[in-house]
């Protein structure tokens, strides 16, 4: 068994934390599994908040000429809904999967930099809290003579310039309050978090693979994590600079995006979408990875065209940097650029299509086991295809100019990001539930969740297609009765509440099954990849000894052989192998050294919000607090060894 490591001396500022239970064990942990679980819960919390914001929007739009929200509050709500769902819900839920699964899938004990991993989590938490503190401290402010001059409630204290923050609307002239500063600096902090985790995952995948885990033997989820990490690493620096420009414009009187001083508002759009479009793939590729794990397992067939899926993923990631201006067809860009970006947008549909056909090839002729993860994976394919097809229509520039800023666009990206990314995420949550908690979820509730969510989702976002084509514009708080848009808007709002109901079913299932669920075997799905060769829930040390991988889908090949016709036949030795694995997994032979917990990631990241407030309120004391926390954090970190040299038994 592992030995609990007791630090024998105070090496630097604080005594090394050693709690294994309770809140301090979570705050100081550097274990990728605990960090993954924290990411998951915190992101789900923000998902609920983002969902509530959406419901508030839908109550407002349920009837024509409604006055449930004021215009200012409506602006704040759709801005926060978008920002929350992208940066505080889907990205971190994907990060939860990366953290928990990546080391398990490549057979590692942890990520390459465990403390850096804790750092990116805590920076993300403080970034999210900073952004949401706008409801307490922020002010929307009213431009002179603008409609915002009406009185607004606390809901209106949030950023209101859209999640895309178009300039000059989000500049100080038209958004004079502090709310957009909270937005710009909040995203900056969240960006640092993602950037740090991207370094960590790239290095982990390159350097921490177990014996025999060649690149082309890695599970597809790991491959997609790799692609996402590259997308993050190369797109976030761009938005970082753009957000610095915004902050400089708002705080220090520069004119990067203001024509008054020679700047250019369209530059913001270019920089934002040069980040923003890769961001779309950052949101969807993890789901691609998840369903690529689930479909073969529940079809009992190997993934059809593994190399094609891997290369298509990287093709998408690469071309994803060359399509950004299709978000800007209605802006001032030249016809040549419009044609070029229209074509590149059509081209990116090709690798995406390759993936779809490979998934269909995987389930074709398979022995389908329609459990909840599989249902969500199939739902993912269906919904994503709809969203993908409406996406290709945007590459046709004249049509896109007509659709820009209508509900057609809203329908499109919710089919991709909800029908795509979220369905994939739910598939993954059910699929790996037994591995994380050692319990089985309730299958009946899971299936009810799937069907209510599928129905609610389509009722919500399906009608938006024709509402948009009829001309309902997005980001507008009312529509007139004479437009005859009322009926379908009501249906959309009802659909939104059905989605909310399905989420409640999911939460009930989760909380019940986590406590009272049946005990899960360590390989409940007869799965293919090596994270299923270890006990459920995963022991702290992951693998008792480093696995030696001999093939793609190694675990499957250990259990199954092929007969002459290529059909899978269970080996006689399979059951013995499983028993042996369970025995070994729980009782490692050797002593295992694991990285020690640390206070410093938490301390260091707690300094960042202070720096943010210092910039907004031009306060030297706040800046000093921030700098001191960061210095203490980094100094302690630099002088603290990753693993304490602990006293061995003989010496004692």
């Amino acid at each position, binding site marked *: 068994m592992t030995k609990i490591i007791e630090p024998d001396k105070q090496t630097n500022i604080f005594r090394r934390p050693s709690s294994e239970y309770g809140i301090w064990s979570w705050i100081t942990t550097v274990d990728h599994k605990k960090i993954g679980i924290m990411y998951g819960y915190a992101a789900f919390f923000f998902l609920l908040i983002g969902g509530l914001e959406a419901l508030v929007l839908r109550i407002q739009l349920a009837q024509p000429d409604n006055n449930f929200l004021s215009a200012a509050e409506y602006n704040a709500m759709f801005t926060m809904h978008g920002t929350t769902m992208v940066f505080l819900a889907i990205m971190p839920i994907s990060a939860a999967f990366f953290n928990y699964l990546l080391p398990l899938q490549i057979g590692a004990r942890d990520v390459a930099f465990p403390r850096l991993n804790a750092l990116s989590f805590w920076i993300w938490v403080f970034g999210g809290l900073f952004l949401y503190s706008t409801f307490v401290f922020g002010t929307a402010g009213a431009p002179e003579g603008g409609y915002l001059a009406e009185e607004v409630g606390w809901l209106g204290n949030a950023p209101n310039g859209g999640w895309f923050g178009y300039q000059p609307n989000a500049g100080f002239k038209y958004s004079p309050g502090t709310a957009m500063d909270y937005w710009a600096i909040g995203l900056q902090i969240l960006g640092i978090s993602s950037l740090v985790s991207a370094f960590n995952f790239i290095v982990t995948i390159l350097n921490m693979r177990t014996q025999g885990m060649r690149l082309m033997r890695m599970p597809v989820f790991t491959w997609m994590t790799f692609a996402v990490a590259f997308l993050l690493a190369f797109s976030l620096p761009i938005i970082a600079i753009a957000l610095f420009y915004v902050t400089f414009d708002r705080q220090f009187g520069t004119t990067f995006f203001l024509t008054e001083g020679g*700047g250019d508002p369209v530059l913001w759009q270019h920089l934002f979408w040069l980040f923003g479009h890769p961001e779309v793939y950052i949101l969807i590729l993890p789901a691609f990875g998840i369903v690529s794990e689930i479909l073969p397992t529940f079809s009992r067939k190997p993934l059809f065209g593994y190399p094609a899926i891997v290369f298509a993923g990287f093709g998408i990631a690469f071309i994803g940097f060359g399509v950004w201006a299709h978000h800007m067809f209605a802006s001032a860009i030249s016809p040549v650029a419009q044609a070029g970006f229209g074509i590149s947008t059509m081209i990116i549909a090709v690798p995406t299509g390759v993936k779809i056909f490979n998934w269909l090839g995987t389930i074709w002729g398979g022995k389908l086991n329609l459990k909840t993860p599989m249902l969500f994976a199939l739902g993912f394919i269906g919904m994503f295809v709809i969203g993908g097809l409406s996406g290709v229509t945007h590459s046709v520039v004249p049509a896109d100019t007509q659709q820009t800023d209508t509900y057609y666009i809203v329908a499109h990206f919710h089919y991709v990001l909800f029908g795509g990314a979220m369905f994939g995420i739910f598939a993954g949550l059910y699929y790996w539930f037994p591995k994380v908690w050692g319990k089985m979820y309730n299958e009946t509730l899971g299936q009810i969740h799937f069907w209510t969510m599928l129905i609610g989702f389509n009722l919500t976002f399906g009608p938006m297609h024709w509402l948009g084509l009829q001309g309902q514009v997005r980001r507008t708080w009312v529509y007139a009765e004479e437009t005859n848009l009322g009926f379908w808007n009501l249906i959309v709002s009802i659909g939104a509440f059905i989605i909310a109901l399905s989420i409640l079913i999911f939460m009930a299932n989760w909380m019940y099954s986590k406590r009272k669920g049946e005990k899960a075997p360590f390989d409940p799905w007869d799965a293919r990849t090596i994270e299923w060769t270890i006990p459920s829930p995963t022991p702290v040390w992951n693998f008792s*000894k480093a696995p030696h991988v001999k093939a793609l889908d190694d675990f499957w090949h250990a259990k199954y052989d092929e007969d002459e016709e290529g059909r899978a036949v269970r080996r006689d030795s399979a059951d013995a192998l499983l028993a042996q694995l369970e025995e070994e997994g729980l009782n490692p032979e050797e002593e295992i050294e694991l990285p020690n917990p640390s206070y410093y990631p938490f301390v260091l990241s707690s300094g960042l919000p202070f720096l943010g407030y210092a910039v907004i309120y031009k306060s030297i004391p706040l800046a000093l607090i921030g700098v001191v926390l960061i210095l203490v954090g980094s100094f302690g970190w630099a002088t603290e060894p990753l693993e304490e040299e602990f006293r061995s038994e003989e010496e004692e």
Partner: protein
Amino acid sequence: MSGGHDYPHESTGVETRKLGMWVFLSTEILFFGTLITTFMIFKGRDFPGMKLTDVYDIPFTSVSSFVLLMSSLTMVLAHNALENEDQEKTRVWLLATAMLGSVFLAGQIYEFTEFYHKGFELSTNIFSSTFYVLTGFHGLHVFIGVVFLIGLWIIGQRQKGLSLDSGFNLEFIALYWHFVDIVWIVLFTVVYLI
């Protein structure tokens, strides 16, 4: 399934922290790339008011650029000394590198002050904004580098001295330092010479 006991630590053979630094530097290229692109976009535009050409002093900046380039040389010497396990010389060269970096920073502060007094302020127009933000971010990188170097020098005072394979690593700070130098070569060319 069964098999080896030893955990391989580096599948690629490159030391993990060093690989991390390489990945970090690759993103820094995008970071400075965005800044430089913005500078270039606005450089060619016509807008009334002061331009960079009205204020800059190329001989002065050339000298401080030379100082920064020499600091790369002293950094290499420090690394070389550590490879030869000469702790004394390592510390001397580290301090020399930090000093040269500080001289460069002092030159930048002097330059900014001069420009400011000539009426070329951060918010004067788009040319001044792009200039200060671009060179300022580079200066911030040099400053962080100097802090790293001094930190390394302080750690080097301990009994066991510095080593190439543990903790706060000289090699990886050297990578960062050289990168910041190379960026300056690009910036000097783009901002001052063309």
